[in-house]
């Protein structure tokens, strides 16, 4: 076996040093009834050629987003990641290291995390950011838990513009601790309803911007209402690229900003691994979940970085920890940070503008298709359209024509009664030809 360096003679000699007659002797503590006599019923080992063949065959049964016209967004976005990002994250020193518990030999990872935190703070417009969570959806749940700790209240108001899967994840991860999630019905713009739902029990209000229908809104009125009621405002962003064009959560009054960072540096990966961005205002720092990297000096006075404030964490505080999270999204955060370093402010704004422009071209093209109604008035790179047909069925029809037309809203929430709503997205990777092909095929199918 190519991954196992011990030779039969190594094994024999080592057993000798140990003083064991056989390897079985080392498993004596296992109850006899549970010791398997031989290999389980699975195939035997295989060489690289064979493994590659099997997996390539499976991969070949998926339609890669880049293989043709493609318009899915709704929480995961196809962006171009520069080749150097993937090159760097594959360096042994980043790929095969652990969480930086021994800072003297982990300054590479630690400095990256410090830079990452600074970038996330800048993007979200908030003063402190952590070193990553699993993804945006679990980050959203953590934000609700954090708000409950900060406010010592038990209710969260979730806007109907929040991604339904985020709302479900928030429910799953917060209800066992006794929190109540008040989820408003799916709606393009429910500012009034959100404000109306805030009460004295409300720990936080969770809104998404741009929301799941792509709508970009000014959430400052909600912020005011929440703050007036002693609640926190959590702003969720599923499309991190929008930070390059849209006012930041911090600028609009968010107390906690949560984002899915996949768009920067990370591939679609059928949904994971992704990277959760998490930032908040300074006073709440010690209620933050996840790892934090801080600056310090070494014994010779040289600047260095360490994981810090770990008394918030499970390995110190155990059941009193701010979260149970341990392994998080280190390498995805690295990829995010590298891509962001390549972009810089100039590049980020440029790419964000291109996304917006492509989405507007897409809107123009789809709006011209008879029967299609564009629902979202202001958007970044995705928006909702109403179709004269069931959206899921239409998506399947177009997929058969090799056009991946977007995400039917019913896929996110089958109970919302929005079966005719389709969410579409365009990014810098979308071409004019892609858009033309989509509009033409859509027009044809709707004309049938």
């Amino acid at each position: 076996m190519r991954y196992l360096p011990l030779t039969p003679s190594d094994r024999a000699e080592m057993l000798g040093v140990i003083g064991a007659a056989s390897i079985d002797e080392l498993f004596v503590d296992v109850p006899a009834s549970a010791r398997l006599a031989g290999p389980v019923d699975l195939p035997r080992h295989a060489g690289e050629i064979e493994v590659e063949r099997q997996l390539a065959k499976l991969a070949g049964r998926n339609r890669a987003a880049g293989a043709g016209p493609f318009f899915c967004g709704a929480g995961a976005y196809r962006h171009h990641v520069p080749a150097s990002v993937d090159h760097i994250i594959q360096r042994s020193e980043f790929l095969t290291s652990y969480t930086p518990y021994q800072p003297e030999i982990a300054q590479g990872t630690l400095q990256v995390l410090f830079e990452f935190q600074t970038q996330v703070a800048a993007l979200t417009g908030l003063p402190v950011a952590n070193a990553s969570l699993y993804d945006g959806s679990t980050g959203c749940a953590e934000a609700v838990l954090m708000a409950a700790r900060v406010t010592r209240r038990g209710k969260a108001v979730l806007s109907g513009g929040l991604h339904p899967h985020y709302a479900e994840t928030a429910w799953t991860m917060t209800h066992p601790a006794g929190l109540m999630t008040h989820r408003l019905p799916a709606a393009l713009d429910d500012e009034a309803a959100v404000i109306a739902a805030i009460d004295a029990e409300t720990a936080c209000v969770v809104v998404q911007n741009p929301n799941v229908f792509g709508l970009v809104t000014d959430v400052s009125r909600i912020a005011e209402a929440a703050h007036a009621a002693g609640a926190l405002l959590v702003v969720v962003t599923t499309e991190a690229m929008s930070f390059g064009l849209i006012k930041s959560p911090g600028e609009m009054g968010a107390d906690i900003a949560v984002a899915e960072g996949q768009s920067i540096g990370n591939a679609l990966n059928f949904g994971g691994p992704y990277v959760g961005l998490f930032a908040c205002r300074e006073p709440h720092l010690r209620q933050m979940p996840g790892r934090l990297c801080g600056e310090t000096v070494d014994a010779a006075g040289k600047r260095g970085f360490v994981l810090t404030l770990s008394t918030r964490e499970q390995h110190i505080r155990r059941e009193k920890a701010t979260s149970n999270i341990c392994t998080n999204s280190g390498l995805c955060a690295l990829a995010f940070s590298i891509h962001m370093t390549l972009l810089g402010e100039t590049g980020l704004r440029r790419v964000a503008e291109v996304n917006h422009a492509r989405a507007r071209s897409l809107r123009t093209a789809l709006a011209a298709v008879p029967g299609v109604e564009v629902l979202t008035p202001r958007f970044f790179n995705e928006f909702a359209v109403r179709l004269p047909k069931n959206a899921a069925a239409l998506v399947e029809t177009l997929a058969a024509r090799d056009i991946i037309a977007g995400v039917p809203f019913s896929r996110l929430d089958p109970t919302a009664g929005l079966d005719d709503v389709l969410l579409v997205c365009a990014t810098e990777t979308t071409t004019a030809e892609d858009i033309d092909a989509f509009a033409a095929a859509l027009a044809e199918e709707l004309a049938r």
Partner: protein
Amino acid sequence: MSVVSVGRPTRPETEAEAVARPHGHGLVQDEPLIFELGGWDKTGVDMEPADLGADDLGDLVRGAPIGLPGLSEPETLRHYVRLSQKNHAIDLAMYPLGSCTMKHNPRLNEKMARLPGFADVHPLQPVSTVQGALALMDQLAHWLKTLTGMPAVALTPKAGAHGELCGLLAIRAALEARGDGRRTVLAPVSAHGTNPATAAMAGYQVVEIAQTADGRVDIADLAAKLGPDVAAVMVTNPNTCGLFEREVIEIARLTHAAGAFFYCDGANFNAIVGRVRPGDLGVDAMHINLHKTFSTPHGGGGPGAGPVVLSAALAPYAPTPWVVAGPDGSFALREGREGEAAAASGRMDAFHGQMGMYVRAMSYMLSHGADGLRQVAEDAVLNANYVKARLSGELTPAFPEGPCMHEALFDDAWLEGAGVTTLDVAKALIDEGFHPMTMYFPLVVHGAMLIEPTETEPRRELDRFCDAVLRLAAAAKAGDAERFKAAPVSAPLRRLDETAAARKPRLRWTA
């Protein structure tokens, strides 16, 4: 270009010089923060500007400077390559962090995960266009179920701790389904911090179970604490002392008899994979860290993946989404609470979990096969016992009797009177070129040193490591405490002031 080497013989080194330059050292490039490199108006990404402005967005457009520096590609490469060289890594030398299973990360896994058919696929594409992805998830599920002897698995948890939560939520849902509102979880003191933290997140109070002198769960104490309010017993097996819970079947029996569920922390599955099936031990739920046992890279702190295998009693309470194999060989996704998902315990995250890790784990499993995985467990245990045997003369094993499993635990009794702590030994190991072992965990042992070599360490590296530890032991016992206090001297930095960092946190760069 060519260089004429004018062959002036170099003069031999003086003794002073030889001392000043410890062997095996090299220059490490200093590297400022990206914010200090002056790239405020640079970018390393070329893109034609958009043909339209964003004026339709009115005052929602971000006006104020964001504060993000950019770098050209050459500068970017240098920044990160320089930084990378300040890290230790598995690929550089042994990384015996107990409980972390720092094993070799095969490069084939990386290659497979990057196939466009896996990497460039959207989680919400029509199911008809992702049949290969679903097939892979189904295959992974089959392997995990077969290896654990369990009937079901929930793939979506993002890491071990998230898997623990998933398992406890299934237990909670199962109890609620029978109208049972139990509020306590029992767990030993030696448990990893995520266990109590997760139990708290899941709404439970944690009560500790005592440990026996030989490092296992105290069955009498367990029996005494089990009662009608206990929802689950959480036990790590092999446990965090690196020992197999001999009485595990009895633990399960007692737990079930009390109407509770048996959650097993499977972080140490590497020790028994292919040789023992948790399903045969009475386990109801167990998370598997794909980033430990199944070789997906730790990446400096993730991503991981924490699938949870479930017993028949818990299977209906798995979270959605899950994959359903159709009779025609096609696959569907159960995403909502329809049909057999009526009792699902919720959704652990937005999409399907960690697909990128599934591919890597599958690539690893197919490579090893049933026979190779069994050998993994055997070699992992052999390596740990070898280290234990080689070090036991000088160090004090926490549990000298009997074999250990995949990791060897020592306490700091051997340092008594030397003026050297476990921390000092760890830092001194850095100067020997190794990553330190896990220290001060588990909490049940004084000054714990937990050494997990994993099966991918060759004999030669084990010997280099043991030799280094034994050298350090001799130095400590000879009274050379100063060397330990000064360590590390060969790392890019000396010891870092963690107290100062926490006292006045500086968590981001400011101008």
